[in-house]
């Protein structure tokens, strides 16, 4: 039975369980729902959950674990000598997978019977040609060991699947039977369902946390394999970023970090004043109509995909800057300081525009959290509105605003699309904002795209860059949240 139908079956069983449980509870109370401990639906839900949850949990775990078990048992079958020169067990196993998938397809299409697929021998049939007819392209002729392994693979996989179907079905039935048996009018179904829902919520939270940890760990291990290939002193303290494929690359993060921080700095230079003033206007000056119109508008701006900003940088802002600072005598200033559209300034300006709504909407919330009594106190002393804002509201909101700025900085540092399109690709230390520079995120993209070998330092460096970036932004976020939270407490 395919997994899909198995899931459908379990759900159908659970639905049946719901009705059965509900009916049994009502019956045990002689049809009078008021004699029941809980509402009838709780009894149904109890049976439903007991049927569904353990069965589906086991199903999920089984689906996750089975492939590695099969892989392990099959790879044990391949003898050392069956692995050709300049190949690895991993590559052979990939062949095995492909052949196994080919056989699966052949059976599905009816080109082979299940019987044939299990017993076919390379000595008697040209398997490559037969699979080729079905559209499964194999790189070389199928070697006997590989075919045997593939057949073994299919056999183990199939029996594993069979066992899974049996176990899951039995579990669902057992859950149904057990909870149905326990359903009577004094059973505290409501409390049990409450616990079940609690467990479900904990599970969801756990899943979110675990995946995050998983991501970090996988990055971490890849980074370790990078540091086995490349010296960490060069990575953290070297001065040059020059990857090449001869194997003597200089891969230092510092020039990239410089570019990242420089662009982020310019972005904040744009976003912080504009965003803050916009927030002050919206929260202190704008009347209800303007606010009702402008706030959602700003929030929509915050939802523009960054690739769109990237296009804006590349096609509009970059050329505009060139026409001012470049083009020699034809340019607006008659100077030739800027040659291409990509530059620190281009990326920084556009990133700043992207961050404006982010800064303003956070600051707006924070300014609104300053108690009205504070403003009244100042106005009551004969201060004007702007004096009140400058001398009372902003100082009171300052810690929160600093937190907002740090959050914006963390976004700027992690931003990718705008810098990929607007900043350029040259890693260097320079103070000139009209030159192109590159950032950590840009390099991660370029090291991982294109023809790459996932075992070389030039590729693996992406993970080391990624984890450094992660630590950097995580640090900023933690600091920002700490500051914002501390500030919140002040007024509670």
């Amino acid at each position, binding site marked *: 039975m395919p997994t899909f139908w198995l899931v459908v079956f379990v759900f159908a069983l659970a639905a049946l369980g719901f009705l059965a449980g509900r009916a049994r509870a009502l019956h045990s109370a002689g049809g009078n729902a008021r004699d029941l401990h809980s509402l009838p639906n709780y009894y149904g839900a109890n049976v439903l959950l007991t049927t569904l949850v353990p069965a589906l949990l086991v199903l999920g775990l089984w689906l996750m674990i089975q492939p590695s078990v099969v892989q392990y048992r099959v790879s044990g079958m391949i003898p050392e000598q069956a692995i050709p020169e300049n190949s690895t067990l991993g590559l052979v196993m990939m062949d095995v997978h492909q052949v196994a998938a080919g056989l699966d397809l052949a059976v599905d299409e009816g080109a082979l019977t299940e019987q044939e697929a299990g017993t076919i021998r390379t000595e008697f049939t040209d398997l490559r040609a037969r699979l080729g007819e079905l559209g499964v392209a194999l790189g070389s002729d199928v070697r006997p060991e590989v075919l045997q392994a593939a057949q073994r693979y299919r056999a183990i996989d199939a029996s594993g699947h069979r066992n899974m179907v049996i176990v899951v079905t039995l579990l669902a039935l057992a859950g149904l039977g057990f909870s149905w048996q326990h359903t009577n009018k004094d059973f505290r179904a409501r409390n049990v369902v409450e616990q079940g829902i609690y467990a479900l919520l904990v599970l969801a939270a756990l899943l979110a946390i675990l995946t995050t940890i998983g991501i970090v760990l996988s990055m971490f291990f890849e980074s370790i394999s990078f540091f086995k290939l490349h010296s960490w002193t060069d990575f953290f303290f070297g001065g040059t970023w020059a990857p090449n494929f001869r194997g003597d690359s200089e891969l230092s993060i510092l020039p990239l970090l410089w570019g990242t921080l420089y662009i982020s700095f310019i972005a904040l230079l744009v976003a912080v004043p504009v965003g803050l003033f916009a927030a002050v206007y919206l929260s202190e000056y704008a*009347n*209800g109509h303007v606010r009702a119109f402008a706030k959602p508008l700003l929030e929509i701006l915050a939802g523009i995909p960054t690739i769109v900003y990237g296009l804006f940088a590349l096609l509009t802002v970059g050329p505009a800057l060139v026409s001012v600072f470049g083009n020699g005598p034809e340019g607006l200033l008659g100077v030739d300081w800027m040659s291409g559209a990509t530059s620190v300034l281009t990326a920084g300006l556009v990133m700043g525009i992207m961050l404006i709504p982010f800064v303003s909407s956070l600051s707006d919330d924070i300014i609104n959290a300053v*108690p009205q*009594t*504070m*403003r*009244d*106190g*100042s*106005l*009551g*002393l*004969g*201060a*004007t509105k702007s*004096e009140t804002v400058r*001398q*009372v509201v902003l*100082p*009171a909101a300052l810690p929160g605003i600093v937190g907002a700025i740090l959050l914006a900085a963390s976004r700027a540092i992690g931003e990718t699309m705008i810098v990929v399109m607007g900043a350029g690709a040259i890693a260097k230390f320079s103070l000139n904002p009209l030159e192109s520079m590159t950032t950590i995120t840009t390099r991660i993209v370029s090291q991982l795209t294109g023809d790459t070998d996932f075992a070389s330092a030039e590729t693996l460096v992406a993970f080391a860059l990624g984890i450094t970036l992660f630590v950097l932004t995580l640090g900023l976020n933690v600091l920002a949240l700490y500051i914002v939270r501390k500030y919140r407490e*002040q007024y509670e």
Partner: protein
Amino acid sequence: MYDIATTEKTVEQQVTKISARDVQVYYGESHAIKDVNVDIEDKTVTAFIGPSGCGKSTFLRCLNRMNDTIDICKVKGEILLDGENIYDPKVDPVQLRAKVGMVFQKPNPFPKSIYDNIAYGPRIHGLARNKAELDEIVEKSLRRGAIWNEVKDRLDAPGTGLSGGQQQRLCIARAIATEPEVLLMDEPCSALDPIATAQVEELIDELRQNYSVVIVTHSMQQAARVSQKTAFFHLGNLVEFGETGQIFTNPEDPRTESYITGRIG
């Protein structure tokens, strides 16, 4: 008729500081203050009493145009301060508020040092020519606010770190520092404990020497203790206004009597 404690407090006839004529206040459609006429005297404490929601705060806030900060609030009628209509377009509400100071229900010190809290108004209005003068204003205000002895050693400490009662006296001192002529207080003791309340009440009695004080209060005992004149508001109307002793011992209006004896509240 008057009992002795209140007769002692009554003072000789004073000049009128503020007089309100046919004041109406609307919040959007709702009519919050109806036809109020009242004369508030100089160097006198006037108490506004009445059940909650009757418009005491609203009327108080008309006296220094704090209602201007509420968009939907509209004020009609005349309020004369020393004979000049404060709602005249010529009058700058910001200047007016320096003359008519306000103390709020909840102590609201700025998140600044004690010194800067007091110096806030004088700095804004340029009352001091140099640091020495400013120091002097700060000290004088804190002394008048009856809090100097408690804070003189820690003027640089944040004002928010004081106790509730100290914060409220700090706010009174802060209001005094701009040298107002009238001091409006909206339930200044409602967030304070009895001891702090007693200190603030004592302070209000002293302030009467120099200012005209208007205080909104929920506590009738407080009104009786600190005020010479009392105004009773009910549902947006000024029901009765007169000598405090008169109002408390021999009210004319049955509504006042019911309120004072606890039948409406």
